[in-house]
Each structure stands twice: as structure tokens, then as C-alpha cells.
């Protein structure tokens, strides 16, 4: 079989290629190899590999000598990448039948019980996954060389006879579909969908007059026959998961309801709901895809509190467990719209199947993350396990969603009011969210401060709802207060970190001040006081002023780590001495962390650190995160109470004061913060030693 590929053999030592006939136990066959005019190769065939000798399939690049001896990633990019992305070895593809390659390659594994039978194996569920349909883009003139990669780094070339003309293609498809193993084509539709090139190929066949005189559309008839047989063969459960129920009440075995599922691509499938098993524990609980692949999830289902279920079923069952809810991250790659089923196995009492509705809505990023956090309706009742729930399912899922957020739209609008200083000494960045009338108040307090003649003031509108109001306010109050300012907006909500990072990109000042809109100076000259401290104090990386409430009590005079016995595992921040009158005098003091409600640091440092970490949800911990990264570089953080500002914050730092979803967001952020500390990305604030 190697003779037909001289260009490959030129680059390869004979020992690298083995004929499948010579390789014990491994058998393979290509039923049909199609090269379409649209630039796709579609290969239908099977691999019988009872001893798990293969790692996966590879497309060999003719003439690419380096590919053979080089790294696997480059050699088998289209296949290996998809698998490696999952962090597992190549054989995983057997378990994960739908592989999406980066270049548009798709590999589907399908059942071939005929192969099992032919090889004297007993056909059965999960044991017949020998078949494959491969679709890969290739230049129209090229015929790709396909091989099975073996675990000992050798290859078995797949012998393909390529068909190209419409007539040959249809004839070949008819032949394939008339075979007993015709589930192939049904799987194309079920697994790849209408968008798949193979499906288009079948659908868009040349008119029947060109092919045969049978009168009926050969393609349609072929397809109809194929689907019918496939249904018979695959069984009702796996053939159409969409027909399954989403809740089931069988008091003898299980009462279960699946509330929602979130497809997370390669990261898996997050779903939640509740179940009661009044009589007996299930032998296994598994998640299945439409090809029959099954992963056991019983030990991945983290129990969560469902008082609603308790109150609904208490009258019927005496022992309704409050912790009957669950959230689970199933390690089964799932993309939007793909059906998944949940199976409770009660052994001799049979199996119970139900569908996991897969979220197909367009929500993403923050909206989706907030939605997913709502899974834990009552965090306080699972507080002892919450950190672990984040660790095993929810945290990972949200990290995936947040990391997959689309990048900020390129279009950023900027309007300058008045003339900014040519070479500003300071850049003052103020994000606006929800409420923008603070602009009026800040400008009134900046107007007569000479420092603002050398400062550029940047308001970042991080809230699409207030853009018009912000523009009107800026135009109107710039006129009367005369403080030059720049308004930046981009029609979306990026959160506190994102907004500041966008503002920081525009900053030209040597020093940067991150400022909340509800902070007002008590006196002029505060910028110069902070800048002097930043310059003079030993190893200063950032400095912050004393922030006081309107009544003069401390709002912020340094930030410290704190743990909370009611939320084991989480690390939180605390503003020390909050609400107590300030008696500390004007001298500077070092603290482990400082709030970013008003923080001055060098613009170059901020950029070198990459700014705020945008992957916290909404706005928590960004400032402590930034402070602890500064500390990683040996920088120290000082409170400079000679500069005094008011901070009119009402938001509680206390977890118990936050409403459900907001509390969960903070807890997620706290988990993420702790995770970064554990991994060494941040200095552990509990170990910071304060210099005297």
C-alpha cells in the first residue's frame, strides 16, 4: 500500500511505515474517499483496534520532511491539537468522537457493529465505535495522505482511492448507504449537522438525469433509507436525544429534574438540577452524547441545597434530603446546541434516561457567568463545601466562560473637552458605571486645584445605558468648571478592571491615578502630595490617600487579608478600622494592600504588569490582585494620609450584606483570587511583612 505514496516515502525511513496487514490486531478500511470541488476531502471508513495500538489519525504533509521527525503538534496539527487542547493523550479521540480541528477538520466516530461481527467480536453498546467520517479541507488538486498513528510512533497508511466526479461520488455514496453499516450517513446528520460539507455534498448532488434512469432522486432515496435504518439500529435513546424528557418522576427509582446545561466546548458540559432516589441508590450516573459515549459523573455531582424541592416533596417522601440539588461539570466536550443525556443506572431495575437541555442562547461572558452563578441559589447553606464546588465544577466553568469573552470591540469613541495638557504629569482615570452625576461633583472639586492644570482627566463610560447622559454632563459641566477632560466610551460593560485598562491605554502622564467616581478631594494639591510620596518613599510601587466617609471616619486606611470562619477556604479583603475616626496623623505608613478607589502608581509599572486582571467578575479583588503583583516585583505600598479624600461608598465589603447573586460573584472572585495565590501568581498577603 505504500507504493502509491512515493513523495511521502522519500522522506521517511521504511521502518516508520507498517502495513496494516502486517500489524497484528489492527485492521482498517476506507469505504469511500471523496475529493470535492469545494476543496474538502471526505473519508468514510473504519479502524478495528482491539488492543488500543493507535493514538489517532494523522494527515501527512507530502514533501514536508521536517514534519516526520519534528514535533507532533506540527505534524498532526489538525487532529493532535484538538486532543492536546484537552490536556489528554491522543487516544482520547476514541472516547470523544467529534473532534473539531482548528482548520475546519472534523472527525466523527460512529458505531460499526458489522465490523465487530466481522472481527468475531460480540457487538454491544460502547464497543462498536470503529467507524469514522473524516472531513478535512485540502487544495482541490491535492490528495491528502492519511495514516493511523501508532503508540510506538509508527504509522499505518490508509489506502484511499479518491473519487472526484459527481457521478462517482453519488455512486460511491449509494454503495456505502446500501451496505448494512449504513448508520454512517445518519450519523453525519446527527453528529455534524446540516452545516457539514458532507451533508451539503449529499444534498447538492447533480440532477438524477445525469446519473441513472431510476426516476426518483437517488440522493434523497439513499438518504431516506439510510436514516430509517439508522433509527432502527441505534435505538430510540441515542438516535434522537431531543425526544427525551427533562424531568422524570419514578418514585420506585428516581425523581429527577435537570434545570439547565451550559456547553463549554472542550472544557466540558456544566449542568445542574436535583434528584431524589427514595428507595435505592443508583449503580451509576452517566452523561452520554449522541454517539453513545458515556462518562460516569456520580462522583462529580456536587450536592447543593434545594429547599424548594424539599417543600414540594416533603408531604410525599419522609426523607427528602435538602442537599438533593447538584451541579456537575461533565468532562465531555460539548458545543452549543449539541444534545446530551443523563442516565441513571439502577441495574436490574433498569435505566432512566433524560435529556439535559443545552443552553443555546446568545449570552456569553459576564451575563453567562452571572447566570451560571445563580445555580447556587442559597450559597449560605452550602458554605462549607462552596470552595470545593468552585474547585471541581463551577469555578472552572466560569473561568472558561470569562476567558472566552470576546475581546473589547475595536471601536472606542473618545471626545476631548477643552485642551488637555501637552505633556501631562498625571493621568486620572475614572470609570463611570450606573450613575454619572458624580462627574458634576468631581469637577466642582477639581476646578480650583492647580494640580489639575498638569493632569489629564479621563472618564471611561463603562455602561452603555449612561453614554448620552455622560456626554451631556461632560459638555455642560466642562463649560462651567473649565477642567479639560476626555470621555471614552465603547458601548458595553467591561467591568471595573476592563474600564481602567482601556483608560490606562490612553494615559500619557508619568503617574496614573485610579479613581472612583464617588471619591471627592477634601483639599487641593493631593495629586502632588501623592506623587511626592511615590517618588520618595523606599521602593514605593503605589500610594493611596486616606479615604474618609462624609462623617470623617475611616473608609480606607490600608487593606488587609481576612478569612471568614463562615466561608471556609476563601480569602477576603478587609478595610482596617473602617468607621472609626482617623487619629493617625499625616505621616505615611506601609500596608499589605491598598484600595484602588484612589491609587497612584507609575504608568509604566501598570503597563508592565499588564494592568488589572480582567477575569474577575464585575469588580472585586482587582485592586488587591494588582497590589500583590506589584509586591512580587519587590514594590511596597504606602498610605499617605497627608492627602485626604472623601469616599462615599455604600457598598458593603461584608459578604453577609450582599444579596444572593452579588454574594456569589464575590465568592467566585474570592475563589479565583485564592487560586491565583495558591499558584504563586500573587504574593500571599498573609505573608507580607510590613516595614517600619
Amino acid at each position, binding site marked *: 500500500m505504500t507504493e502509491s505514496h512515493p513523495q511521502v516515502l522519500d522522506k521517511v525511513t521504511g521502518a516508520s511505515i507498517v502495513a496494516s496487514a502486517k500489524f497484528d490486531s489492527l485492521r482498517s478500511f476506507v469505504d469511500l474517499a471523496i475529493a470535492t470541488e469545494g476543496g474538502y476531502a471526505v473519508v468514510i471508513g473504519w479502524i478495528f483496534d482491539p488492543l488500543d495500538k493507535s493514538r489517532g489519525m494523522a494527515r501527512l504533509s507530502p514533501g514536508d520532511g521536517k514534519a516526520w521527525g519534528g514535533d507532533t503538534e506540527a505534524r498532526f496539527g489538525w487532529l493532535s491539537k484538538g486532543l492536546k487542547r484537552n490536556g489528554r493523550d491522543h487516544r482520547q479521540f476514541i472516547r470523544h468522537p467529534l473532534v473539531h480541528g482548528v482548520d475546519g477538520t472534523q472527525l466523527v466516530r460512529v458505531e460499526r457493529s458489522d465490523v465487530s461481527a466481522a472481527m468475531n467480536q460480540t457487538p454491544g453498546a460502547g464497543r462498536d465505535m470503529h467507524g469514522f467520517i473524516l472531513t478535512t479541507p485540502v487544495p482541490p488538486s491535492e490528495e491528502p495522505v492519511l495514516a493511523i498513528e501508532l503508540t510506538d510512533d509508527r504509522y499505518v497508511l490508509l489506502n484511499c482511492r479518491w473519487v472526484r466526479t459527481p457521478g462517482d461520488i453519488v455512486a460511491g455514496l449509494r454503495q456505502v448507504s446500501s451496505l448494512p453499516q449504513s448508520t454512517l450517513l445518519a450519523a453525519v446528520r446527527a453528529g455534524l449537522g446540516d452545516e457539514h460539507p458532507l451533508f451539503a455534498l449529499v444534498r447538492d448532488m447533480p440532477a438524477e438525469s445525469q446519473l441513472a434512469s431510476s426516476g426518483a432522486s437517488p440522493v434523497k432515496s439513499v438518504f431516506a433509507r439510510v436514516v430509517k435504518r439508522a433509527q432502527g439500529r441505534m435505538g430510540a435513546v441515542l438516535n434522537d436525544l431531543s425526544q427525551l424528557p427533562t424531568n422524570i418522576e419514578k418514585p420506585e427509582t428516581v425523581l429527577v429534574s435537570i434545570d439547565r446545561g451550559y456547553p463549554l466546548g472542550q472544557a466540558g458540559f456544566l449542568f445542574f438540577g436535583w434528584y431524589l432516589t427514595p428507595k435505592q441508590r443508583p449503580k451509576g450516573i452517566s452523561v452520554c452524547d449522541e454517539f453513545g459515549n458515556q462518562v460516569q459523573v456520580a462522583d462529580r455531582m456536587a450536592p447543593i441545597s434545594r429547599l424548594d424541592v424539599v417543600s414540594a416533596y416533603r408531604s410525599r417522601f419522609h426523607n427528602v434530603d435538602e442537599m438533593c440539588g447538584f451541579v456537575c461539570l461533565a468532562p465531555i466536550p460539548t458545543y452549543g446546541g449539541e444534545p446530551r443525556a443523563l442516565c441513571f443506572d439502577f441495574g436490574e431495575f433498569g435505566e432512566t434516561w433524560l435529556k439535559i437541555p443545552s443552553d443555546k442562547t446568545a449570552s456569553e461572558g459576564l451575563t453567562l457567568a452571572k447566570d451560571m452563578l445563580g445555580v447556587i441559589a442559597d450559597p449560605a447553606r452550602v458554605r462549607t463545601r462552596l470552595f470545593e464546588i468552585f474547585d471541581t465544577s463551577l469555578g472552572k466553568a466560569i473561568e472558561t466562560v470569562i476567558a472566552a469573552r470576546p475581546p473589547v470591540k475595536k471601536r472606542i469613541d473618545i471626545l476631548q473637552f477643552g485642551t488637555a495638557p501637552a505633556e501631562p504629569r498625571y493621568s486620572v482615570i475614572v470609570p463611570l458605571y450606573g450613575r454619572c452625576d458624580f462627574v458634576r461633583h468631581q469637577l*466642582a472639586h477639581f*476646578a480650583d486645584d492647580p494640580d489639575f492644570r498638569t493632569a489629564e482627566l479621563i472618564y471611561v463610560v463603562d455602561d452603555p445605558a449612561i453614554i448620552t447622559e455622560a456626554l451631556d454632563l461632560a459638555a455642560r459641566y466642562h*463649560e*462651567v*468648571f473649565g477642567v479639560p477632560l476626555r470621555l471614552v466610551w465603547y458601548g458595553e460593560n467591561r467591568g471595573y478592571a476592563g474600564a481602567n485598562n482601556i483608560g490606562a491605554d490612553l494615559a500619557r502622564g508619568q503617574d496614573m491615578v485610579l479613581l472612583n467616581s464617588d471619591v*471627592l478631594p477634601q483639599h487641593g494639591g493631593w495629586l502632588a502630595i501623592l506623587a511626592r510620596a511615590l517618588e520618595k518613599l523606599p521602593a514605593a510601587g503605589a500610594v493611596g490617600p486616606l479615604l474618609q466617609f*462624609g*462623617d470623617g471616619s475611616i473608609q480606607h486606611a490600608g487593606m488587609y487579608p481576612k478569612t471568614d470562619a463562615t466561608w471556609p477556604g476563601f480569602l477576603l479583603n478587609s478595610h482596617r478600622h473602617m468607621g472609626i475616626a482617623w487619629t493617625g496623623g499625616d505621616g505615611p505608613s506601609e500596608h499589605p494592600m491598598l484600595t484602588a478607589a484612589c491609587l497612584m502608581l507609575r504608568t509604566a509599572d501598570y503597563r508592565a504588569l499588564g494592568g488589572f486582571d480582567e477575569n474577575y467578575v464585575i469588580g472585586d479583588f482587582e485592586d488587591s490582585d494588582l497590589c500583590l503583583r506589584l509586591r512580587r516585583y519587590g514594590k511596597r505600598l504606602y498610605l499617605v494620609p497627608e492627602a485626604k479624600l472623601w469616599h*462615599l461608598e455604600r457598598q458593603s465589603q461584608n459578604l453577609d450584606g450582599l444579596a444572593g447573586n452579588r454574594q456569589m460573584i464575590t465568592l467566585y472572585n474570592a475563589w479565583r483570587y485564592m487560586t491565583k495565590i495558591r499558584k504563586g501568581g500573587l504574593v500571599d498577603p498573609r505573608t507580607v511583612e510590613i516595614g517600619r
Partner: protein
Amino acid sequence: MKVVVLSHGHPVFSKGGGEYAAYYLWQGLNREPGVEAWFVGRAHPEALHSFSTLAVMGERDYLIGGNAIIADLTATTPLGADSDFAELLRQIDPDVVHFHHYVHLGIELLRVVRNACPRARIVMTLHEFIAICVNNGQMVKTDGRLCFHYSPRECNLCFRHLKPEDFFLRERYIKSFFALADAFISPSDFLRRRYLDWGLETRHFEVIENGLPEDDRVPPRTLADGEPRGRFAYFGQINPYKGVDVILEAIAGLPKASRKSMSLDIFGGSLEYQPEAFRQKVETLLAACGNTVHLHGVYDPAEIGRLMREVDWVVMGSIWWENSPLVIQEAYKFGRPVICPDIGGMAEKVVDGVGGLTYRARDSVSLAALIKRILADAALFDRLCRTLPPYPALRAITRQHLDLYESIGQGIAV
């Protein structure tokens, strides 16, 4: 010297004491040699042109738009260097811009003045407590109690939809503009102390009464044989703060015999605009008082002298502090003693037994006892008339203002 006097209303449209005080000052200034004064009074939109915030009322007499609300006091008119108001200021090029109030106009106008006329001195006359109190500047709590001290937390108890921080912001915002004024004037020491307690920081803060155009006393009413000095008059708007209901309650509670030997004339209107509950209360009390009380409706300040001829006493019922009520000075001017509550600006202007008599504020029983005492003591009226303080004559008051304007220029701290 060129002076611009700004008022939150023009007396042609708005007949309040503050508006008149500003208007009289403008007239007084124009009578002084070497002084040119302009009046700029806020008016309702219908009185103005469509596309300008300014309109001419007369010579050096302007109307200006504006609808700043008490909650935030922020201007609704253009504030830029090219605004009509800024153009007018630059054209006048005043030495002094005197704000007689900031409500309606908008607090930002102080900075517009500072921007347009950097060398002009800015003077501000304070009236009630609008900078301090969102409840119409009365320093009366929304549950009716008197308020003694500004505190954002207590303000929040009056207006639950506003947070303490909102009041703090409002205070900071107003103070950022007050910092631009070179001097403040309060017509009463009581009001001055309240603003100092609120934290107003200024080097110049004087008490100067609002001036009244000069006029002569009117002789006491001629009495019939044996008739007591029993004719009382109320001048002013009829609203809950002015406390007409307190006076009516006192009269309704008097023995019939006392009621027969007295009368109350009410000069003033607006009852129809008051809240239903208040209106009903007043109407019920009026019915209870019968012939003792007569409602005369709205009057013009020019009529006061004539109206005073037929009365013996001027009576007030205010349930709020008051600043320096014009009606007290009018009574002194025309030679009538004043009966008023014993709080705030009223207690400062009328010390019990000097210029009039006071009763326990908000207490109709106390007032009723006082009325009985007045009706029983035939000599009381004459005794009190001999103690009437001088009224603040416009010319003298105008010169006090000019002295203040000059003194700021010389940088004299008060």
C-alpha cells in the same frame, strides 16, 4: 461702582420678601451718586423669549430664566462663556455681583460670574436655609418637628429616598460655589449662626437688614369709647409654614366674650393652592371663628401703610424659624407692635416687651392667653408703641451695602 443684583424672582411676578429686598436694594443703589446698578430677576419661561435666557423688563432691569430645583440647585440655563448671561456680565463689567439668593437661578451661576468677570467681587445675601435643608429650606422636619442642626443622616430620615451621601454631596457641591463668594450677608444673626453651624467658611459674613423704602408712621387707630385695642392683622401667604391655622385655632378657642371684642383681618392669598388637608383645616377654623375673622385676599406692598391704619397689631403664626420677616419691619415702619412666635429670626427681631410680644411657637393656647391679656390691658398697646425699634431704612441699608462692597476690595476681615 457698577453692581449687578441677582434675585431668584422678579417682584412683578413673585411677591416674596426676598424678591422685594433685592429689588429695593437695586433701587437704593441707583439713587446713590457714582453707583450704577442692574437688576436681574428670575422669571417663568412664558415671560421670556423662546431662544434666550434673558429679556428686558426696564432700564437696567432684566429677566433671566432658570428652574433649578431645591434638591440639587443645579442650573438649567446655559453656563458657558458664550451664554447670554456671561455676555451680559462682560458687557456690564460689574465691580460687584450681588446674589440675592441662588435658588431657581442655579448655584453654578457663581462660577459663571467668576469665569466671566474674574475681578468682580461676589456678594451673597442668604435668605432661608435652602443650602442647608432640602425641605424647602425651612429647617422643619418632614414630620413637622423643628430642626436644629444639619446632619446628612437626619436629612435621610426626612427624605428616605435620598441617602445620607446624597445630602453630603449636595452640601459639598454648594460649598464649592460658596467658596467663590467674597462676602456673605444675612439679614438676621440667627440665620448667620445657622449657616456658620452648617460650616460656611468665609472671611466676610455680616448681618445687614433688608432695607425698606422710607415712609412715615401712621397714627394709631382712633378708638370708640371703651373699645379695646382688639384689631389684629395677618400679612402674608396662607400656607402651612406661615401658621395662619395656629392663629385661627387660638381665636376659635377664645371665650365668646373675648371674640366679640376683637377681630382678625387676613391680608394674603394662595389658600387655594395648599394641600387639601390644610385647606380643610383652615376652612373649618374660619367657620368656627365666624365674624371675628375676615379674609381680604392678596395685597400689594404699596398698600400696606393704608391697611395698617385700620389695625392695632400685626400678628404672625409661623411654625418655622423665619429669617428676618419683612412684615415685622413693615410693622415697625408704620408704628404697629408685633405679636409673633418666640423662635428664630422672629425672636431676634421681636424681644418680648420690646416692639411687640411673643408667644410659645406652634402653641395656639399660648397665643390665646396672650390675646386675652392684650384685650384686658388697655395700656399695653401704648407702652409697646414706645419701644418700637427703628426700621431699616433703605438709604442707610444701601450705604451699609456699599461699605461692605468697598471693604472687600480693601481685604478687611470681619
